[in-house]
């Protein structure tokens, strides 16, 4: 039982990180209809900025968190304004290719701005180990699971009750009609990129706290993308849940079957789920009038 619980907690912790990044994917897709292939790289950049602040300005958790959030907002807004907005109205394929190009540039920037060495993000908390009945959990792991759950609730309330959230849903549903209703699609897009950058950046910072920072961190995006597909590409909350499910499945397969199955199990689950629900567990079925 202890073995199972340990696998469960570790799976939820890594799954929460996937979930946060997956939510980043979904926020952009829901508002712009675009899959951002630079999501993992944006996550990595925010984590590196947090590390830079912690080593040069202050290692205080509040200072680092605030700086990371601000940096994520700026990063999202700059990418939207400079790279994505000029692509408005262009074919989806071209826009997706732009995000792939952006991913390569952001990935390479790590070596140009920082270095290839692994680094640890030290903010004084998150690395301690809590032991209960022979089960060990890092405080950072508890924090990331809690953060994901809180964010899921907050995002649900945001889309359900706030004016901006409703506007974002309107743009996602039909941007032309939304425009006629006085909603600025460009503002909604900018907000989506900023929000996506912040949510995924939080995942990146938690990953750096629990593991370390390295130029290979962008690969988190590759793990989070299946979580988005599983939860539903247009379902922000579903993507968060999808991350948890992928993390759990990976860990249980790795623990009970073999190490090699760990990376395969999540994808196997996606294939099965998509065969039954092609729009994901929480995604909306696309209905076209013919």
């Amino acid at each position, binding site marked *: 039982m202890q073995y199972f619980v340990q696998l469960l907690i570790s799976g939820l912790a890594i799954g929460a990180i996937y979930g946060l990044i997956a939510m980043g994917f979904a926020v952009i897709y829901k508002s712009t209809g675009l899959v951002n292939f630079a999501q993992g790289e944006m996550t990595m950049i925010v984590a590196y900025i947090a590390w830079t602040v912690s080593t040069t300005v202050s290692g205080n958790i509040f200072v680092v968190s605030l700086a990371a959030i601000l940096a994520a907002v700026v990063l999202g807004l700059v990418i939207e304004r400079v790279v994505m907005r000029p692509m408005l109205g262009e074919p989806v394929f071209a826009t997706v290719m732009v995000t792939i190009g952006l991913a390569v540039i952001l990935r390479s920037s790590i*070596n140009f701005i920082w270095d290839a*060495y692994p*680094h640890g993000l030290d903010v004084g908390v998150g690395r301690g180990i809590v032991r209960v009945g022979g089960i060990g*959990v890092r405080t950072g792991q508890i924090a990331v699971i809690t953060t994901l759950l809180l964010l899921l609730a907050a995002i649900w309330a945001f889309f359900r009750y706030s004016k901006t959230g409703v506007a974002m849903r309107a743009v996602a549903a039909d941007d032309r009609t939304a425009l006629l209703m006085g909603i600025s699609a460009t503002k909604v897009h900018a907000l989506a990129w900023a929000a996506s950058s912040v949510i995924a950046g939080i995942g990146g910072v938690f990953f750096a706290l629990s*593991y370390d920072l*390295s*130029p*290979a961190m962008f690969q988190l995006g590759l793990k989070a993308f299946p979580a988005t597909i599983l939860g539903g590409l247009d379902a922000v909350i579903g993507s968060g849940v999808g991350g948890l499910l992928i993390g759990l499945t990976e860990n249980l397969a790795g623990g009970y079957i073999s190490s090699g199955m760990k990376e395969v199990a999540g994808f196997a689950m996606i294939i099965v789920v998509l065969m039954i629900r092609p729009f994901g567990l929480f995604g909306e079925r696309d209905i076209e009038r013919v």
Partner: protein
Amino acid sequence: MRNHLATVSLLAAALLSGSAQAADPGVTDTEILIGDVEPLTGPPALLGVAASIGHKIAIAEANNAGGINGRKIKYVLEDDGYVTARTIQGVKKVIEVDKVFAMLGISGSGQSIAVMPVLEKSGIPTVIDVAPVKLLWEPARKNVFVVGQSYEEGIIHLVNYLADKNPGKTWGLITQDDDYGITVRDGFDSVVKAKKLKVVYSGNYKKGQQDFSSDMLQLKESKADVFLAGGIIAENIAMMKELEKLNVKPVTGIFWPGRIEPVLKLMGPAGDGIYAVDYVEPFAGEAGKAFLEKAKPLVTEAEFKGINRYTMTGYAAAKVLLAAIERCGKAVTWACTISELEKTKNVETGVMAPISFGPGVRFSNQKLQIMQADAATLSFKPVQ
């Protein structure tokens, strides 16, 4: 008739000298060009950048001493991003476009193997130092020399040492699912067979895996006393931190690609006492300290921070190549350089055991040593 003969002789001489120049490019009266292709971007830049710094240190040292027989050494470095196709493209570029005289490096093991036909066909003198694997010297190629020790021998040495130190104990192993992992596993298996070791855990993770919670939990459940962590850098860090979380501390061995000092800082107390095998000197030893002292004025501050064990391998290879070129005197040719490289006998570099090649011997077969991590000083110290 005599005039015609003289003209023909002159033309033939001119053609011959022309073809000799075309065959041995990269040397002028004032400089010699040395080429290199390394991963300078992406995660493997950790080794590529460090190796290139080692080359630069040896070259700066030679240039500060007046150059090689009056000729300054110029270093041409290309980035391959650890992508094999780009390595081949980069090597072709430095040989055919930049027209370098000799090559150092080159990138990772897979990349070096892939680029071997290009090197062999061109005939350019090459000293490989980053990732020594058997396929690079078996079969021996006339113009390609390898400084280092084979991965397999390294693992055998480490496992033998740990087995002798921990008789009758149970073993665990985890490896990466690629050629590097296969080499580690092959070396491990040969000692397991020879010493009849009891293996209770054997894992194989996918390259790029970042979370090792289930793997290390399995290791804990297996109750392995000795653990060979077959990750490279980030993987070993993640494994050790996971073991710390699970409150277990088996005797652990790691391999030299991950034996860099920043790793110890990231492992924290979990990394204390882990064993490693290598053929270059640890920075905590006298030779390591002397190397750092030597390097400091020759590189920039940023480069100095990027020094790790690969800087030592790069430095040693460059020293051997430059020494061979120097022995050729003023008439530097590929044939002479290759011949002098072959005559390399006990060349001291200060960063590893003396280097030797020989007729038909293209691998320096460096002496190995076991080291142990000291978390307090964040360094590896020799134990054998």
